[in-house]
């Protein structure tokens, strides 16, 4: 009793392939899956189960496999690969999962003996307390034992995405799919035929159910059809392509495996994700056989009958020459015939149906071939150590024991409605077929063949002609001859009655997640009687196989417990994906360096040469700080840069600043509406700090506005806010004020920007731009000049984000580096220092300037920041104006911006800490502490030599001078602080305007 080759099968080639499973070498044939090759070598034990670590064998022959999940050690160390799908190639190394130290001897199987503990809801009930145990004890342990395979390391898979726009998609290249394709050959329709397998044929290849089509052998007919399709101009076939989701507006996702049966070539893409738009979708994706629950229905050796038959015909391997067959329906007759035709004799045939349903023809056949058969009988259970030894058959309360190492079961067949329900189609219960089948489509979806509940292959052609009559095609004529004449019939059977023999005996409903029928009963008893609740409580059908062979069974069992009809119990929701797909397929080319573009300024390479440490600001790479020597810490560098800037001069590469040009007849009116400030009386060639609000009155962005004249402005935005500001301007221009003649344009990358500041900055720029008068009288604060320089136009604005005398220089990017170097050439005499974003933040905090997104968080109005002076109160309207007088925004206990300094100057306040009224830590006091606000910015000021901080505090303006406390992550007490003005340096603005 062992496996044998089916010499009649066309798939037995003499091309042998050697592969390794758990370190041991085996030989299979080219075209074998891991599963068929292992069965060929009589390997029955291939995996350990998820929870109880029970021995498991191959159960099915396809995508629905719940047991045979393995890790591929070569390639990317890919875990959780279905052995029934993955084809072998020379040198593939496969290992089993979820076992230690070995598959044969697995310590984890102790869980099986402890199983009374691990009943449904075990985790929910057990790991409740005591407090703190979850994080420190439970979670680390559960994490270590959870999952099946090991995740790949240094994973770098290649996949690409491809788009299709077609008229008709046919899903499934089986009997119905091929007939439909033949019907559509050389019609006006653009057709895509998707087949998950590596060749067409489906049921024709997987069984001997169909004898002849148009008097031709099925294989001959398939080859003929494939050639006709290939020669046609309008149909494209995609093999190895599995449709994983069916979305709205007939949008389908299919995953094509490009390396089936061969080693992955790391220079080529392994996967193609097809994104398909279609007018009509034809579902011809067939059916999936379901199992029956009985005692130890998970033992290695139990296999679905149709899968067993598929191994014989599709892979040319008879997994066992004398298995026991247990069925409740008519589909297993062809398995019986297949075995007998090959000269093998099944050990027994067990059928739960009665004589009338089985039919005289089959009974005669059994008698004639001398096969022991039991009708009106059930398999009670099976026994054995890591594989089946005996099978107990129960017939009228008598137990008959039969010896065999394999048991083929069939509990009926389910139309594969997964994709149909994903498309939002409705299903209905069919009492005759004892399953759900498609009813009303929600989109342009047509189901054909067994997926529509039509199990009679002779009627397939008629069905296709009827359902596709709306297409402009001719009716197709085909004669299909069957091997078995019996019509499909079935007796409802979900679970057989069994005597509990030991703790080890279990009757499973979900093999993948180790859910037993007992768990279902317990869950219902505990009140989880809604199918969606029950599923989540027991984790039934939540494994990677999504309960493809068992979910309808669980509905059957639950309906029996609840004494309801199955149609009343309903189904759980089917969600994409149909089968697991790897993240790399979804990511496509958007990985690593291609994930998001990096934006660099023209000075970037200079920064690298000068030891800049970079910070990501949106997509931009900005210097964070510059190391003067290799060992210099960030703190020291920032203190040095800040001090030097206030002493002589510093320069910042501000090229990332967003810049928008606004031009047009009505530019002035537009600016007055977009920003809070009043621009009407502003002089040409002057600039102004400006705020932009949302309609809710909250600050959205800030920047400096340069007014050339009433028809021409240039504004700067925050580095990250530029796209949003431009989009907002566009939106208002298009939707609210289409009468305004204004053009807005992003010029962020058209100009590089340098901010030079410090008391010596005037001396430096005067030496660089020798023709320009930089004197205070002729170039006052907040004005700008445009002049020719180095054969280009340069704009210099006198502005400052540091509180020092400062200039912003705008120049075309291709001249930027040259100018930058020139500035350093002349700046050397003044110890000009380059500084990064951290120093920029420190310097602005010393001066009390805010950063949008740091002091503000979308809930801050200009009034909260004491920016009353920036609001054009006389303007009739601007965005957000009315909101500033709403009862909520005009409250005086809103959070307001203040400065805070520690009373003990040696202490440091951390950003993000809470500001409270009490000194002691909240732990030691019983009543909740009132939260006054939070610290938004905090730095150690090198120029004042103590910590300075800004905070948003409730009613902060009124608290000036008072003593409050800031929470801290160290020490046992809150830090006492004094509320002060946020302007720490030069409150009279002498440095700015001198």
């Amino acid at each position, binding site marked *: 009793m062992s496996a044998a080759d089916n010499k009649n099968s066309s798939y037995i080639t003499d091309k042998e392939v050697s592969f390794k499973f758990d370190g041991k070498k085996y030989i299979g044939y080219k075209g074998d899956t891991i599963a068929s090759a292992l069965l060929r070598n009589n390997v029955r034990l291939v995996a350990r189960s998820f929870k109880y670590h029970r021995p498991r064998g191959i159960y099915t022959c396809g995508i629905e496999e719940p047991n045979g999940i393995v890790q591929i050690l070569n390639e990317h160390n890919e875990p959780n690969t279905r052995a029934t799908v993955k084809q072998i190639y020379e040198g593939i190394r496969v290992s089993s999962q979820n076992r230690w130290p070995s598959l044969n001897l697995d310590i984890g199987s102790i869980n099986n003996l402890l199983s009374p503990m691990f009943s449904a809801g075990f985790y929910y009930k057990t790991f409740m307390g005591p407090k703190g145990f979850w994080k420190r004890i439970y979670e680390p342990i559960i994490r270590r034992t959870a999952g099946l395979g090991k995740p790949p390391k240094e994973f770098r898979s290649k996949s690409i995405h491809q788009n299709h726009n077609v008229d008709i998609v046919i899903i499934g290249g089986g009997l119905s799919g091929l007939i439909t394709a033949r019907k559509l050959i050389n019609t006006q329709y653009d057709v895509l035929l998707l087949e998950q397998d590596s060749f067409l044929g489906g049921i024709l290849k997987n069984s001997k159910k169909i004898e002849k089509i148009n008097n031709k052998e099925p294989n001959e007919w398939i080859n003929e059809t494939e050639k006709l399709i290939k020669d046609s101009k309008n149909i494209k076939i995609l093999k190895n392509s599995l449709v994983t989701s069916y*979305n*709205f*507006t007939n*949008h389908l996702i299919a995953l094509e495996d490009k390396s089936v049966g061969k080693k992955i070539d790391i220079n080529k893409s392994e996967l193609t994700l097809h994104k398909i*738009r279609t007018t009509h979708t034809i579902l011809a994706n067939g059916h999936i056989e379901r199992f029956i629950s009985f005692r130890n229905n998970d033992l290695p050796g139990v296999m679905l009958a149709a899968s067993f038959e598929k191994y014989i015909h599709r892979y040319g391997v008879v997994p066992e020459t004398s298995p026991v067959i247990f069925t409740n329906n008519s589909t297993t007759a062809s398995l019986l015939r297949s075995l007998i035709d090959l000269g093998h004799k099944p050990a027994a045939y067990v059928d739960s149906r009665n004589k009338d349903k089985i039919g005289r023809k089959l009974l005669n056949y059994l008698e004639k071939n001398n096969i022991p058969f039991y009708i009106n009988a059930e398999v009670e259970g099976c026994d054995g150590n890591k594989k089946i030894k005996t099978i107990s058959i129960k017939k009228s309360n008598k137990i008959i024991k039969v010896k065999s190492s394999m048991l083929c079961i069939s509990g009926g067949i389910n139309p594969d409605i997964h994709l149909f*329900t994903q498309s*939002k189609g*409705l*299903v*209905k*219960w069919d009492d005759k077929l004892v399953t*759900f089948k498609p*009813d*009303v489509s*929600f989109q342009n979806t047509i189901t054909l063949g067994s997926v529509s509940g039509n199990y009679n292959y002779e009627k397939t052609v008629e069905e296709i002609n009827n359902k596709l009559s709306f297409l402009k095609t001719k009716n197709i004529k085909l004669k299909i001859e069957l091997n078995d004449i019996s019509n499909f019939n079935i007796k409802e059977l979900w679970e057989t009655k069994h005597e509990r023999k030991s703790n080890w005996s279990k009757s499973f409903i979900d093999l993948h997640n180790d859910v037993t029928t007992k768990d279902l009963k317990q869950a219902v008893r505990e009140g989880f009687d809604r199918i*969606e609740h029950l599923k989540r409580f027991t984790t039934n059908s939540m494994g990677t196989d999504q309960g493809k062979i068992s979910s309808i069974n669980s509905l059957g069992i639950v309906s029996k417990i609840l004494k309801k009809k199955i*149609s009343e119990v*309903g*189904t759980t*929701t*089917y969600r994409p994906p149909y089968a697991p797909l790897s993240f790399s397929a979804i990511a496509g080319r958007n990985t690593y360096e291609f994930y998001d573009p990096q934006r660099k300024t023209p000075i970037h390479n200079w920064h690298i040469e000068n030891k800049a440490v970079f910070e990501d600001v949106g997509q931009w790479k900005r210097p964070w700080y510059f190391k003067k020597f290799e060992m210099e810490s960030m703190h020291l560098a920032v203190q040095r840069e800040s001090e030097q800037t206030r002493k002589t001069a510093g320069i910042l590469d501000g090229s990332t600043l967003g810049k928008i040009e606004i031009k047009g007849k009505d530019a002035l009116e537009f600016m007055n509406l977009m920003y809070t400030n009043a621009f009407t009386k502003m002089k040409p060639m002057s600039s102004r700090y400006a705020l932009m609000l949302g*309609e*809710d009155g909250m600050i959205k962005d800030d920047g400096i506005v340069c007014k050339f004249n009433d028809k021409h402005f240039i504004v700067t935005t925050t580095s990250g806010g530029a796209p949003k500001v431009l*989009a907002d301007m*566009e*939106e208002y221009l*298009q*939707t*609210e004020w*289409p009468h305004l003649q204004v053009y807005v344009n992003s010029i962020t990358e058209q100009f590089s920007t340098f901010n030079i500041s410090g008391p010596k900055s005037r001396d430096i720029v005067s030496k660089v731009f020798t023709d320009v008068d930089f004197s205070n009288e002729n170039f006052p604060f907040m004005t700008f000049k445009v002049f020719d320089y180095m054969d280009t136009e340069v704009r210099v604005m006198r502005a400052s984000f540091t509180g020092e005398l400062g200039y912003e220089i705008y120049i075309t990017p291709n001249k930027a580096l040259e100018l930058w170097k020139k500035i350093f050439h002349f700046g050397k005499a003044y110890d000009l220092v380059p500084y990064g974003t951290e120093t920029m933040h420190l310097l602005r905090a010393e001066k009390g300037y805010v950063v949008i997104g740091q002091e503000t968080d979308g809930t801050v109005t200009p009034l909260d920041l004491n920016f009353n002076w920036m609001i054009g109160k006389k303007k*009739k*309207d601007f965005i957000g*104006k*009315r*909101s500033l007088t*709403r*009862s909520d925004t005009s409250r005086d206990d809103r959070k307001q911006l203040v400065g805070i300094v520690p009373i003990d100057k040696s202490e440091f306040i951390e950003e993000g800490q809470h500001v409270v009224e009490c000194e002691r830590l909240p732990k030691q006091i019983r009543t909740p502490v009132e939260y006054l606000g939070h610290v938004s910015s905090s730095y150690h000021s090198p120029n004042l030599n103590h910590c300075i901080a800004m905070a948003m505090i409730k009613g902060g303006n009124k608290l000036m001078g008072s003593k409050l406390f800031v929470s801290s992550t160290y020490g046992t007490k809150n830090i006492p602080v004094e509320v002060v003005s946020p302007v720490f340096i030069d409150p009279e603005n002498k440095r700015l305007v001198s």
Partner: protein
Amino acid sequence: MILINCPYCGERDQSEFSNGGEAHVARPENSENLNDKDWGQYVFYRDNPKGIFYERWVHSHGCRKWFNAVRNTSTDEILAIYKLNENPPSKENFTNTLKTPSGEPKVGSGNFTVKK
């Protein structure tokens, strides 16, 4: 992912567009005369019906133009698309089909795929 027919560029994937919420909510001209409640109505309140909805879209990764659409929020069907300067089609043109899965309650999703 739905397909949207940009009136300037033609049919494109939804991923190229951004939704702008309810359409035909005009910004009040005389906001200074509005009381808090009426102004709040404009700033904060938008309809969210199940069924026919007039909404704004922008082809943000395309021509950057705004336009209006009529969409059945229960089926994601786009019933009409029109430019900003065109009159909205009357609601009577569309039958308010709430044909999401099963027995269709007036509110909620009806997450039940079996027809009764």
